[in-house]
């Protein structure tokens, strides 16, 4: 696909739609990967509140997993978890 030249771009680098950050997956920035233990988790949702990338997935008020498409592996969820339900492991690709 040929990319447009500078004359054909919208003024001010505007994109004619919303929610475009979804298309930019930041999960591959990760070095350490959070592993969630469903057994230990009490769904207090501290991690949901603290996660800077909205990567804690919840359903009906319960934690159901982690969105690895956007999780950058910062480890804040592990630090904040009162039940040690999240473990950070070195991710090898």
């Amino acid at each position, binding site marked *: 696909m040929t990319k447009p030249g500078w004359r054909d771009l919208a*003024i001010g*680098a505007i994109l004619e739609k919303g929610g475009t950050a979804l298309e930019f997956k930041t999960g591959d920035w990760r070095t350490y990967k959070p592993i969630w233990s469903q057994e230990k988790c009490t769904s207090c949702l501290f991690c949901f509140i603290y996660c800077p990338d909205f990567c804690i997935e919840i359903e009906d008020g319960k934690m159901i997993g982690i969105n690895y498409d956007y999780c950058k592996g910062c480890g804040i969820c592990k630090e904040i978890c009162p039940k040690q339900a999240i473990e950070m492991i070195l991710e090898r690709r």
Partner: protein
Amino acid sequence: MPIKALTGNEAMAEAMRQINPDVVAAYPITPATEVVQLFAQFVADGKVDTEFVAVESEHSALSACIGAAAAGGRVMTSTASQGLALMHEMLYIASGLRLPMVICEVNRSMSAPINIHCDHSDTMGSRESGWIQIFSEDSQEAYDSVIQAIRISEQAFLPCMVSLDGFIISHCMQGINELTDTEVQEFIGEHKTPYSLLMDGHPFTIGALDLQDYFFEHKRAQIEAMENVLPIIKSVGKEFSKRTKRGYGFFEEYMLGDADICLIALGSCAGTAKVAIQELRDKGIKAGLLKLRVMRPFPYKEIVSALFNIKAIAVLDRSTSMSTMGGPVFIELRSALYDNPVHPLMVNYIYGLGGRDIFPRDIVEVGQKLENIKRTGKIEKMIDYIGVRE
């Protein structure tokens, strides 16, 4: 047209009142001038419909302006010196996103050492930020330019700062020929944007990540927008002069027609220089003045053609680039003259840093030295300083 005795600050605030912007976000950091305070009074007295956002810093002030402009508002603010420096990051955001807005800027020195008085280091420090920059000799020009800046900025989709000299003009009272409120509104017209964050049902993204494959194209388009500013300034100035008989171009030529030596100045010093030019003429020296009004974009082609018959030039810079090659106007003008078949002799005088006064006699001396340079063809000092103790 009513004539009012106003200080430079009051003249700018009065222009803002008549423009009646949708949003003004500002913070009076030291050394801010009274512009914002005066405008806040207009808001408090119900004389404008403006949403006044009092923020906690200039960085936030310009951030709020950017948001308001993206929402389609007509936006203004005012600052000076360190305040403009604190806006620096956001200056690039405003211009890169191509958001029209106007800053009433009062030229004041950049600390350290701490100093609140006039020089051009603050404004010149922002000359690569993608803002249109218009300097004013006096309060009348500042008042007129602020009104024109709204049109220029909104037509070019680029932000614009109009500056006047701190204290010398900002705190000095002068008779201002005002337009009526209706005339100002007629002149600036309605603010129209092709897009707005508040457009219902038309979501768009502004300020998205723009990497190696697109950023350069966006910057190229921004440079083109800057190229297109000059004709806009010209046509807006022409229309303004039709109403007011006060003409505005990129620069003013004073006794330049038959001159063989020329002084270049911007801001209040141009007024002092005019007095000095008269005195030099009385001494038989054919001196002229080119008063630069538009610094960004730099109207180099027009300046070069105006200086065609000039044998020697002295550029008066009220700031230094710290490059050891002189002040910003000197450097840019020298570069502009490079392609000329004949090269005039050029010297640079740095003056007035931190509010140091400059007198007609100082500029007369510059003219006499320049006459000597013209006659002998010899430059002893390419860069010199007026009024600094050795």
